[in-house]
């Protein structure tokens, strides 16, 4: 019996898998991408921001051709209590010209389909509606993948695993540490249809400009997580995501948390007239750098979400790390091919490329971010509430002499904040979160 054979098999047509496929196809490598959805993008999901530095290197001026939604000129970070919001608002004309701060909104069902078509045009093969069930191991080397199809074995010199955040194959093969409630966020999102004119007027935008707003504190009831509103062309994306550990401890149903967020007095006006056209959910990896496995073994490399390549800090970048890892895996394969060595040693340059790049520099820097927030809960809860209420009270107009207001606020801070603990926390926060 003969099996299909390719030089490289990629499991999953998401951003990392397609970036790898495009890079390999351009180098005339025989590459097959296996996707379980009806088409690339059918099952792909994210909050909504495409960080596009790597994409712009792969496809210069992609924004002229790709189905992206808007380029983000306005970013806002908000903390809430039940009735008040306080925000940091960043809007820059510098983000309004190419490369648009490498920050765009997109919808993955459309974008990934287009991105995959670019890889196909370069010579990659993509097969849809096919689920990879396990790796084929021969003499301790990954030699291919077993799919759910009859006669569905596909052999390859190298497998690139791009299966996403629900990393079933990588976990089963012992190629990554187990997924757990402390290293996975669950997020839900709704897409609300609105005419472009309404979006532009409501969010103070012109033309293709977009806004991205992240909410913390009361928006997620003091859990480790955040809520968001992003503007697309003719819709807005609104969602929430929290560490699964926190959802379990508080017995929170995420869709109810989303409903509460949507009803917040500072949020509801932004959603007026929006008709829900989609509801979706995804896990987000927040593996610490310290827990990452090698990310490669004989005949296989892990890329994107299944490798745990998401920056868990306030930057919350994932798409650019995914695409960078796909490109690095492709380059490592090309180097291995020169020496015809796809062993562990042959593929080691994948990890070296990651380590030498901003990808691992960022992940190493933020290695303690999630752990810090889990063990210093005041940062997601009490301190944010206090900050919101201090600002609110400072600007409350009720004919109290301002000196008295100031005194009252200082007294409240003294009563509620343990200064030594705060000083210690701030020292650590500076290193882990900033």
């Amino acid at each position: 019996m003969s099996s299909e054979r390719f030089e490289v098999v990629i499991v999953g047509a998401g951003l990392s898998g397609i970036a790898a496929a495009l890079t390999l196809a351009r180098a005339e490598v025989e590459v097959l991408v296996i996707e379980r959805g009806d088409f690339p993008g059918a099952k792909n999901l994210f909050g909504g921001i495409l960080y596009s530095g790597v994409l712009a290197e792969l496809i210069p001026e992609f924004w002229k051709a790709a189905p992206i939604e808007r380029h983000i000129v306005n970013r806002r970070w908000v903390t809430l209590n039940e009735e008040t919001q306080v925000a940091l608002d960043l809007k820059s004309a510098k983000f309004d010209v190419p490369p648009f701060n490498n920050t765009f909104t997109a919808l993955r069902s459309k974008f990934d389909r287009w991105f995959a078509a670019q890889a196909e045009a370069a010579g990659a093969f993509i097969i849809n509606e096919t689920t990879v069930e396990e790796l084929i191991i021969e003499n301790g080397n990954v030699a291919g993948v077993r799919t759910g199809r009859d006669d569905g074995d596909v052999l390859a010199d190298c497998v690139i695993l791009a299966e996403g955040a629900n990393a079933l194959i990588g976990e089963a093969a012992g190629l990554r540490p187990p997924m757990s409630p402390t290293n996975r966020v669950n997020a839900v999102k709704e897409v609300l249809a609105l005419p472009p004119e309404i979006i532009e007027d409501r969010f103070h935008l012109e033309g293709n400009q977009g806004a991205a707003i992240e909410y913390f504190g009361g928006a997620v009831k003091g859990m480790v997580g955040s809520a968001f509103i992003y503007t697309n062309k003719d819709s807005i994306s609104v969602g929430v995501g929290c560490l699964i550990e926190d959802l379990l401890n508080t017995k929170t149903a995420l869709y109810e948390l989303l409903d509460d967020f949507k009803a917040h007095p500072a949020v509801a006006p932004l959603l007026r007239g929006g008709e829900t056209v989609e509801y979706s959910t995804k896990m987000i990896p927040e593996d610490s750098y310290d827990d990452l496995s090698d990310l490669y073994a004989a005949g296989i490399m892990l890329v994107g979400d299944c490798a745990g390549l998401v920056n868990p800090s306030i930057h919350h970048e994932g798409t650019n790390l995914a695409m960078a890892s796909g490109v690095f895996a492709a380059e490592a394969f090309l180097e291995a091919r020169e020496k015809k060595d796809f062993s562990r040693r042959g593929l080691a340059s994948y990890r070296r490329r990651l380590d030498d790049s901003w990808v691992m520099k960022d992940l190493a820097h933020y290695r303690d971010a999630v752990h810090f927030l889990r063990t210093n809960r005041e940062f997601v809860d009490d301190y944010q509430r206090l900050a919101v209420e201090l600002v609110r009270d400072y600007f409350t107009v009720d004919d109290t002499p301002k000196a008295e207001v100031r005194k009252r606020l200082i007294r409240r801070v003294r009563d509620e904040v343990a200064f030594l603990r705060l000083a210690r926390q701030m020292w650590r926060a500076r290193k882990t979160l900033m």
Partner: protein
Amino acid sequence: MRETGAEMAIDVKEYLRPHVGLSLAERLDLVRRRFADESHIEVDQEAFRSDPDRAVLFICPAQVFKLSEDGATCIVNYEDCLECGTCQVARRYTTWRNPKGGYGVTYRYG
């Protein structure tokens, strides 16, 4: 010059009404799903019964897991699954596999 409100083709008033939230069932109906004959999710019923929180009942963002009327069994409405995998991460007494190729959800926006 950009159109002013008065000249716009859309009825602005239409979009000033409060957003109407949907029930979870209505939200799930918005997602195209192709149902397989067999469930891709299994629950170890004994372990479920000994979970004091019965966590899968609330942790699933599609509420795939329901309690039977007698309160003894976890019913798995796998057709509603949106394929995030959270159930298995939250409680290892659920076994979640990828649906067969071509089955399950297809997002229009994503």
